[in-house]
């Protein structure tokens, strides 16, 4: 069978799906991961590691609720620390999913097809991890709804609508809801496939309920595609809005290092950058372990690296911009903030993040690097570290030495801060392992549209 795409003259672009696949082989391969009775031993190992850290999270939350948020290291003047750092970090990671599923769909980028499903799942799990931090930071999460959501009440009490923290509540909850709908809508035809292929009655029943009576009729497909496009349209502004609102949390303040008009686009770029790094971190072991190299091809790896390069360059531009304007503003507090970042007690963190996010990413310019899977895996992990450090530097260095030298202090996280952070990584991993075991990690029905067989009948979709 001929390869699905003719390479362009003078360059060889890897295909979005390896040659030789048919409708059946795609469905067998992806559906087989879910419908098999034999769970690979490696899955248990991976899930087990995630689950142990999930238990750590449970212990931490238990202690937090019994003792109070004093178990964390944040205190005046650093009133915001790990909780917000990790919140922003996780929310940022979630962005790649929405970008891949919504914007790349609207731009008709075919290569999104094999990575969109698990990137969307990643988004949901990342949002779940992110949401835990502000909720638990309230100390009494069962009262959080009462504090956070505006509802008409006899006391005439309302949250402060001028505070971006309240906008955040809406932005993140909208984001979570739309991402969930988008993900589930995308799953429906695949759930029906699994229902039809399930061997045991129980499994068939579960997938039967979840697939909402999908029969795959022409009318179903027609409405389905329309709904999917509309959801993509609704999700698109969310890619920009959520992290912009997160950046407003900082930027509306008067604090040097937080108040910068560049924050919204710079945060959004950083979010997409870290999100793609996480997709890469997950995709590289996934394709290796389940032998999905035919579906998650070098084309995907290349393109994701290029997206990381572009967004990483925007982030680096943001750093340069902040440094230049700290001087150009002629504001002594801005200048001090910058010199404190560069030479103060947390300077090591600053220079590490610059080394990763501004220097190391220049490696992505090179085809040789984009071809080296092992190196890319390491680099994508480093990008996650770099973006975490970026949030640490922005949040902690701006707070710990503000306008009044008498109130300066240092911040150090406690063991419970680390337990909470690693615990959410455990939650994320546990959910992700459950997802790849029980749901199709790649969109089967969409993959079927890119095999050569599909091109014979209808050339264009959408």
């Amino acid at each position, binding site marked *: 069978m001929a390869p699905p795409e003719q390479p362009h003259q003078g360059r060889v672009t890897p295909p979005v799906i390896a040659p030789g696949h048919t409708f059946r082989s795609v469905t067998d391969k992806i559906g087989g991961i879910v419908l098999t009775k034999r769970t690979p031993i490696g899955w248990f190992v991976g899930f087990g590691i995630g689950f142990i850290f999930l238990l750590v999270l449970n212990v931490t939350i238990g202690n937090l609720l019994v003792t109070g948020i004093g178990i964390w290291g944040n205190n005046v003047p650093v009133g915001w620390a790990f909780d917000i750092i990790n919140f922003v970090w996780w929310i940022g990671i979630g962005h790649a999913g929405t970008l891949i599923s919504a914007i790349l769909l609207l731009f008709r980028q075919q290569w999104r097809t094999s990575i969109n499903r698990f990137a969307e799942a990643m988004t949901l799990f990342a949002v779940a991890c992110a949401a835990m931090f502000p909720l638990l930071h309230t100390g009494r999460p069962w009262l959080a709804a009462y504090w956070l959501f505006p509802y008409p009440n006899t006391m005439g009490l309302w949250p402060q609508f001028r505070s971006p923290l309240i906008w955040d509540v809406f932005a993140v909850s909208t984001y979570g809801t739309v991402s969930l709908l988008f993900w589930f809508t995308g799953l429906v035809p695949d759930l029906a496939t699994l229902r039809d292929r399930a061997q045991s009655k129980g499994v068939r029943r579960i997938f039967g309920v979840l697939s909402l009576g999908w029969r795959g009729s022409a009318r179903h497909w027609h409405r389905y595609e329309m709904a999917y496009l509309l959801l993509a349209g609704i999700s698109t502004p969310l890619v920009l809005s959520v992290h912009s609102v997160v950046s407003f949390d900082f930027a509306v303040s008067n604090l040097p290092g937080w108040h910068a*008009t*560049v924050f919204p686009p710079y945060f959004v770029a950083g979010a997409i950058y870290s999100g793609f790094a996480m997709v890469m971190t997950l995709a590289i072991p996934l394709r290796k372990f389940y032998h999905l190299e035919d579906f998650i091809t070098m084309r995907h790896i290349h393109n994701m690296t290029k997206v990381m390069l572009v967004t990483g360059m925007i982030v680096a531009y943001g750093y340069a*911009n902040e440094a230049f304007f700290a001087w150009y503003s002629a504001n002594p507090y801005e200048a001090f903030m910058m010199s404190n970042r560069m030479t103060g007690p947390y300077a090591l963190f600053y220079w590490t993040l610059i080394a990763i996010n501004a220097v190391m990413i220049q490696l992505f310019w090179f085809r040789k690097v984009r071809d080296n899977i092992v190196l890319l895996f390491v680099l994508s992990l480093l990008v996650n570290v770099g973006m975490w450090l970026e949030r640490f530097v922005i949040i902690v260095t701006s707070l710990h030495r503000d306008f009044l030298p008498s109130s300066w202090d240092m911040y150090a996280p406690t063991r419970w801060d680390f337990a909470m952070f690693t615990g959410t990584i455990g939650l994320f991993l546990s959910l992700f392992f459950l997802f790849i075991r029980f749901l199709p990690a790649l969109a089967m029905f969409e993959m079927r549209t890119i095999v050569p067989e599909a091109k014979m009948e209808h050339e264009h979709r959408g």
Partner: protein
Amino acid sequence: MTAQTHDGAHLAAPRDIDGLRSRALIAGVVGLVGCGLGFVFDRDHFFRSWLIAYLLVLGIALGSMALLMIQHLSGGAWGVFRRVFEASSRTLPLLALMFLPIVLGMGTLYSWTHAEHVAADAILQHKAPYLNVPFFLIRALIYFAGWIGIAWTMSRWSRRQDEGDMSVNKRLQYLAGGGLVFYALASTFAGIDWIMSINPHWFSTLFGFIMVAGHGLSALSFTIVVSTFLSRRAPMENILKPSHFHDLGKLSLAFVMLWAYFNFSQYMLVYAANLAEEIPYFITRISHGWQYVALFLVVFQFIVPFLLLLSRDLKRMPHRLIWVSFALLAVRYIDLFLLVSPEFASTGANLHMVTGAHESHFYVHWLDLAAPLAVGGLWLWMFFTQLAQRPLVAFADPYLREAMESTGGH
């Protein structure tokens, strides 16, 4: 219509272009006469009006060059517009020449050029290592050298591609990658130098993004206008499909949204923080009549084009889309007008913190109409000259087949 023919003769520009060229030249000369009168009788206003008009056409040229580089890097369905982008970017040498009046007018445009003014102002003394005449000129030289160098090299390699030399494809990509980095940095600093430093106390870290969004929006609008003209004539009438306009329309919509997003973010953050070093910029623009210009922009550079461009049918009908694009170009001019003019509303010194607010009322000067005629006319003349020099389709583009087959979607 065969894209594979290795000879561009049948893709030559239509003859009507010559008519447009001469009309543009006439308009330019008429405008120049007006500007000459302005130069003699009202020199200060001449420089300001020239700067605003200049920024508009510079934005089209630079935006086109950036879109061209993105096209080289990403391929994609807008390869059919490559020659329009290339012709725009080849106007940069003329734009360098048209920058000279701004150099001549530095003294009236930028208060930091006056030593006695700087001596009385601690902030300007702090900024003097950056805001001084020699360094300003050196930077301008660097920007133009870089931009012209990139545009010229891309144009040369593009010609080699037409001649069948496929080895340039790879090099074009490398150049585009580095070129975009240079473009982004140079556009940011050019924005700081030529616009932001009119009010040398003010700063906004988002300004570079606002520049780039403006470039993209004006370049896309201009490309839609020119391509609509071309799509009614041979040879492009069979090549440009509704789907191609649909793609440009979608990008225009994206840039309309980006423009609004950047400007809203900047306004909201400065408004909320309300800091003495930032807020005067907006106070100037939301009082004394300028607020109506600002509101006009909110409505006509965001709300109306946003709602119109949502329509799939509109984006696929070039004869309608062209009006939205025309309007967007006009509104871009007003946007630049609002970036520059209010700073000069207080006569003499533009530091409204110093002078009284009573002199800050909204005004439009007759030179604000003559200067765009001069700058725009001359620039269009150059653009059409450049456009006519090459086949209208980059027929050797490796992505072209994909671009021509594109049916557009959604």
